[in-house]
């Protein structure tokens, strides 16, 4: 069975535009922090918070809202989901400082998996 990501070029390009927009905005507002520092913070926001949320938003609300709307919804989902899944392991005694990067990466992988589509099934449909 063959699988492929159900993401269109437009969805990916708009995500890139959004991330660039965020970078420019933060560079302007936080100009005293230096280019590299703001670049790192902006990348972290885009990759570790926005991306997982966006992938979830694409899966859940694709039919209801346009891609740009989903980018904003995805950012909101990203903030809530990362906070929630950062908290859950701590209940089992896991030191949350150790999963700061692992947890968003896991969420991105889950986000990609839920956006996988069965090529054969799609062709039949």
């Amino acid at each position, binding site marked *: 069975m063959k699988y492929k990501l159900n993401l269109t070029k437009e969805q990916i390009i708009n995500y890139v535009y959004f991330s660039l927009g965020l970078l420019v905005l933060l560079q302007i507002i936080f100009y005293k922090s230096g280019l590299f*520092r703001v670049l790192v*913070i902006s990348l972290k926001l885009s990759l570790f918070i926005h991306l997982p949320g966006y992938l979830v938003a694409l899966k859940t609300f694709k039919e209801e809202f346009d891609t740009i709307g989903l980018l*904003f919804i995805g950012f909101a989902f990203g903030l*809530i989901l990362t906070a929630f899944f950062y908290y859950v392991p701590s209940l089992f005694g896991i030191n*949350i400082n150790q999963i700061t990067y692992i947890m968003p990466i896991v969420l991105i992988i889950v986000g990609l998996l839920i956006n996988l589509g069965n090529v054969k099934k799609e062709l039949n449909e």
Partner: protein
Amino acid sequence: MDIKKGNRWIKYAPLIVLIILIFVLINPSFFQSNFEAKSPNSLLAGDAYGGVSYIYDIDRMGNFNQESQFILGFTGGKVTLREMPLFFIYGTFLYNLLGIEPYVAIFLGLLLGMILSISIFYIIIKKQSFTWAVFFLPCTLFLFTFPFIAGITWGIWKSYFMYFILATSFLFFLTRFTKERAVIFIIIWSSLILTHPSLLIYFLALFLIKIIVEKQDLKRNISTLFISGIITLTITLHYFLNYAIVSAEPGGTKEKILGLIGAHGSYHLYAANPYTSHFGFFWYIALAGFAYSLFYLFQNIKKRETFKFKLFSLFSLFFIIFLLPVVGLTRINQFRLVWPLYVSVFVGLVIYLLFKIIKDKFKIKNKFAIFIIYLILLVGLVNYLQFSKTNYSITNEEQWDTYMFINENTNTNATLLLINPVSSQNEFQPINRKLRYYDLERFSKATQTDTSLTNLYSKFVCDPPKKTRDGFKIYSNEEMVKECEENREKNVPPCTFDYILINKQFQNQEQVNLVQEFISELDITNYQMIKESQQTLLLKNNKVCKENEI
């Protein structure tokens, strides 16, 4: 990008303009154009410093399963959480991920939450009418003015995060439940409970309306909500086990029920209680919009499955909720911190309806006119509203530097006596050491009674969860509660402390005299000055005496 695709972004241009404007307006008071703030910007109450202390503590401990020691007076006891955990976990995540100080991370996190709440409102209104969505935006600027902004600067952070989660849940109210959405809905619901469950009843009321209006999906909605509720309860069970031992509390069933809907004693935000008068003329416009919305709902009761009906019922419900403090549900006062969001919806609606009438009459070009009106409203409001341009905090840079110096350079078991004639706001909570203090209140008492500070009781922050909260009883450690109550106000000789920290920001000569008198009573030969700045003085006691030797 071709023109068609570019057009899609143009539909979001008003929102993007507003977001940029919000960042620009809030920057002087929140960030000062820098991620690297040397001390907190615009923290104006003890609760805010408590929030920052929680984040430092969670970072140190690696989790938030037990109450932080700074709130338990460093007694070493273990008790269940007094605070709901998720917001502080969120702050810690941003702090760790972005590598910025907690007070910057929290402000950035809350600002993003508010901006995304506005964005979600924009997106859902835009689905009904682009023009209405554009006219909704300008009045949201009220959110960033006093008293509404006090929710952030005074540290009512959990509530703000809860409002943001609530705004996200509107997406689920307005759309059909699917399997994928149900999974995310469970996480949203659980997050809401773990952030601030006090107004959970209104979240439930919202989805009860969904069951009523979506008649064609009755079975699906009931089963989805039921299953989601069971799973949410399971996820948050540990929280409820800690907090919700309702039956163990003697009496007061009526009060508990009233507490659930927001009748919470005489809850108020002191000087920051939002009132209708804060909106000025816009309040009356919003009222007209609300009246129109009610009229529409009654007239179209048979079309209740439409998106428009659900949208109107959603905003009308919350508009009514915000009016509830008038009938004694004072807890809603806290909810009113995000009132501008809902008022803006109806202000936008009225402007949209007027625009529609004028447009039809004079055959105005649609998009151009919308853009011009939007800009006029935006510029007008930026001039009309007062945005804070100062980053004043209770602690200044030198004070904060001394606090951090103590955390980094003193023994973790060290004790500290704080002489603080400036405030009574517990802004010293980020000092991660056992401490007692003389605050502004003690100074006033010493002046009034003409006695020296050493003859007065010093205070001790020790506040284990013992009270009921939101109608629920909290498990606690009875022995610790007793110990704390005995020690909270006590006369402890200064020589028993390892360090003495004096805040030198005296407000009058009497305060200076009191501190001079206090120092003269010390055996100064035992003390060594280890840090001095214009605002603070830190003394180390080289010969600590035991309390019973005095």
